[in-house]
């Protein structure tokens, strides 16, 4: 059976709805996003950095900062398309209201993905501005990071939403966060280079999303331009594209039945 085409206009309406809600509390909302990187850099960069002077020839704080930036996008975007979407879908019945308008399930899904990417970007943007204050990434090439905040946010939004489209109980998100995101956070090369680890770990890492974001971000921050960066970027684009196509279908199936 043919399903209606995705409408960007309708998706924008869903994005706007979330923005309207966010606008009411954004000042309260965004503040922790600035404290978080500050605390990380203080605790891990300076505290742990006192013991680990250098990692791959640079200060420890500079080693971890680009990766932490990307992880903040990951947390921000997935939080939006997991818990928040689940509540809107199942508890607040907001989607019941939206879907009885010209907005169709796929438009709704795309709107939530765009919003998830936006939230991820806001997390990342706050983090980035703190790094800037710490004197990191003071070069023109750093501008490349800005579109990346959104693209990586979008990728993680699709991953969160895909999980959400399958589960019936909100408790299952604990598994997603503890057994999927936390390992990503720890083993994607943010805190230590994966090159020291067994080849198998590196192979597994290649198949995971955060790793490519971390590598890309570090390359840009440290201006280590190479073709590798382009491959990491391609990986992210391809996975995001495929995942988007998949998640629009699963959400459609979930909401149109």
């Amino acid at each position, binding site marked *: *059976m*043919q399903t*209606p085409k995705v*409408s960007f*206009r*309708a998706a924008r*309406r869903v994005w*706007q*709805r979330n923005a*309207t*809600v966010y606008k*009411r509390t954004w000042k309260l909302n965004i503040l922790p996003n600035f404290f978080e990187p500050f605390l990380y850099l203080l605790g891990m960069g300076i505290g742990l950095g006192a013991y680990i002077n250098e990692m791959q020839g640079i200060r420890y704080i500079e080693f971890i900062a680009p990766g932490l930036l990307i992880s903040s996008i990951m947390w921000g975007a997935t939080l939006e398309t997991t818990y928040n979407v689940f509540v809107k879908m199942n508890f*607040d*019945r*907001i989607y*019941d*209201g*939206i*879907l*009885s*308008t*010209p*907005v*169709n399930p796929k438009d709704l899904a795309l709107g939530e993905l765009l919003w998830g990417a936006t939230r991820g970007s806001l997390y990342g943007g706050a983090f980035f501005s703190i790094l800037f204050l710490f004197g990191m990434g003071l070069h023109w090439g750093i501008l490349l990071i800005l579109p990346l905040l959104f693209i990586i946010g979008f990728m993680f939004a699709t991953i969160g939403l895909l999980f959400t489209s399958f589960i019936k109980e909100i408790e299952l998100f604990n598994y997603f966060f503890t057994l999927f995101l936390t390992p990503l956070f720890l083993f994607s090369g943010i805190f230590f280079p994966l090159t020291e680890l067994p080849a198998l770990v590196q192979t597994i890492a290649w198949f995971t999303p955060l790793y490519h974001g971390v590598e890309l971000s570090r390359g840009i921050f440290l201006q280590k331009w190479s073709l590798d960066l382009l491959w990491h970027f391609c990986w992210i684009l391809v996975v995001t594209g495929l995942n988007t196509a998949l998640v629009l279908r699963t959400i459609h199936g979930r*909401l*149109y*039945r």
Partner: protein
Amino acid sequence: MSTSKPIVIAHDLIKRYGSLTAVNKINFQIEPGTCYGFLGPNGAGKTTVMRMIYCVTPLNSGSLTVNGLDVMSNMSEVKRGIGVVTQDDSLDYDLNVLNNLLVYARYYDLPKTQALHRANELIEFFQLEEKRLENVRALSGGMKRRLQIARALINKPNILILDEPSTGLDPQARHHVWAKCHELIEQGVTLLLTTHYMDEAEQLCDRLAVMDRGNIIAENSPWELIKKEVSPQVVEVRADGKQRTRILERLKANISDHEELSDRLLLYTEDATALYTDIQAMALPLKTLLTRRSSMEDVFLKLTGRGLID
């Protein structure tokens, strides 16, 4: 009005959920500018029919056109012409009253100034002025329902779907909702509603489809249904089984039909006064004896042979 084309045409509509057949090959047509009701107990398939009409549930087979458009291939266009008040409140609790309307208007691509104008108009029509900038949480049940109806009307739909519009409301709020519904019908809006309240069906509907277990078991105007399915008057007797049997045996000839419930005996008749006098003359120990007009509830009992199960 009888010459105009039906605004909703359903032909052999089927919807299954796994092994459960929620809607079992039903047919109906709805004339524009009328109020059409689906009456039946929970689980009869009323809500599923509504959901198919406003394109959030696909059909398994059959065809369904709304405003001349097929619901499966023109989802957005069909929904553009329909306002929906869902059974469970689907208001946006993160927004205030006005923003609930404005955000909703955006889903229909209404320009900002037009949306604001329309929102204010509706806030006035549904007497929500005092709550204009209040969070939805601060509204009473009746106000929430009114806001939901207001929201459904933001795009000036020619069809308004109300899924159990007065469930959970107190009597005043119910009557207020009904009054607004009457006004909307006068404005030419076609109303589609589901209900399991007989009085609501009688109050509002020009035509009624009585649904039971996925089937339409009768379809007519409320008055015709009562006339056709039961006698216009009822004598209700509350008494124990022995007395009831005696009444039935003695007066069989005077009643057109009867229905035995757990605690009551319903006797349908053309002349309730005469029957009432006859029963009184038997001088039996009865708990209650009364006559009343037949209602949709009687029709329902007659058609399904069972009480409304909630």
